[in-house]
């Protein structure tokens, strides 16, 4: 399930939903991304997140489908917030349940890595010095390429 939303999310509820599966799922891997004070520049005080409604969901569904074909995956949950976010706010959640720990880790990390370089979201950082659009990092692109 995919949610793109302005509202905050509750990792406890998401974890409970991932856990409430068939008893063959013995592994749950999760990742949460938070607004940190050092992005492109230091002194970040907040973010604004823009996205391309419709395309975003399609791209993420494609990543979930690819993960499900490559690994033994039971449930996948992706949440990404948009709009204005403050320092330490939650931005993104990816949770995967699987029968196997290696598959849960791999699918969770693949979706996170690929989301960062292919899902149409854009971050604008606010700092004491003003605001600016974040530049894509070469290291993020390399990380995604490593999965192919």
């Amino acid at each position: 399930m995919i949610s793109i939303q302005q509202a905050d999310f509750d990792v406890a509820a998401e974890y409970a939903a991932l856990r409430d599966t068939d008893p063959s799922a013995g592994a749950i891997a999760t990742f949460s991304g938070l607004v940190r004070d050092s992005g492109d520049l230091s002194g970040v005080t907040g973010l604004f997140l823009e996205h391309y409604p419709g395309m975003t969901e399609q791209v993420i569904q494609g990543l979930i489908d690819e993960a499900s074909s490559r690994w033994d995956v039971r449930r996948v949950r992706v949440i990404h917030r948009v709009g204005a976010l403050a320092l330490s706010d939650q931005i993104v959640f990816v949770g995967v349940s699987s029968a196997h720990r290696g598959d849960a880790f791999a699918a969770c990390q693949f979706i996170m890595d690929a989301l960062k370089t292919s899902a149409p979201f854009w971050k604008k950082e606010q700092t004491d010095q003003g605001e600016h659009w974040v530049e894509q990092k070469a290291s993020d692109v390399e990380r995604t390429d490593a999965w192919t």
Partner: protein
Amino acid sequence: MTDSKITVRFFARLREELGTEHLDLNLPEGSTVADVQTELASRGGTWAQLTGSQPVLAAVNQAMAKPATPVRPGDEVAFFPPVTGG
């Protein structure tokens, strides 16, 4: 020659610098994404960046597209900078 009306959308830095969220465009039949970019860049000013040195990504009907991707009547074309979510 039939004109094909498409919708063009802009996001993030491009949206801000062009001062435009979306516009409609009439293009000759057989046009491609590259043709849309060239047509818009010819407006000059900040529009020139659509064919400039900074990377500009394109989508047609909400799927990633290449310069050679054909554009048909009714299509939604979007231009945006490299993505930075997550």
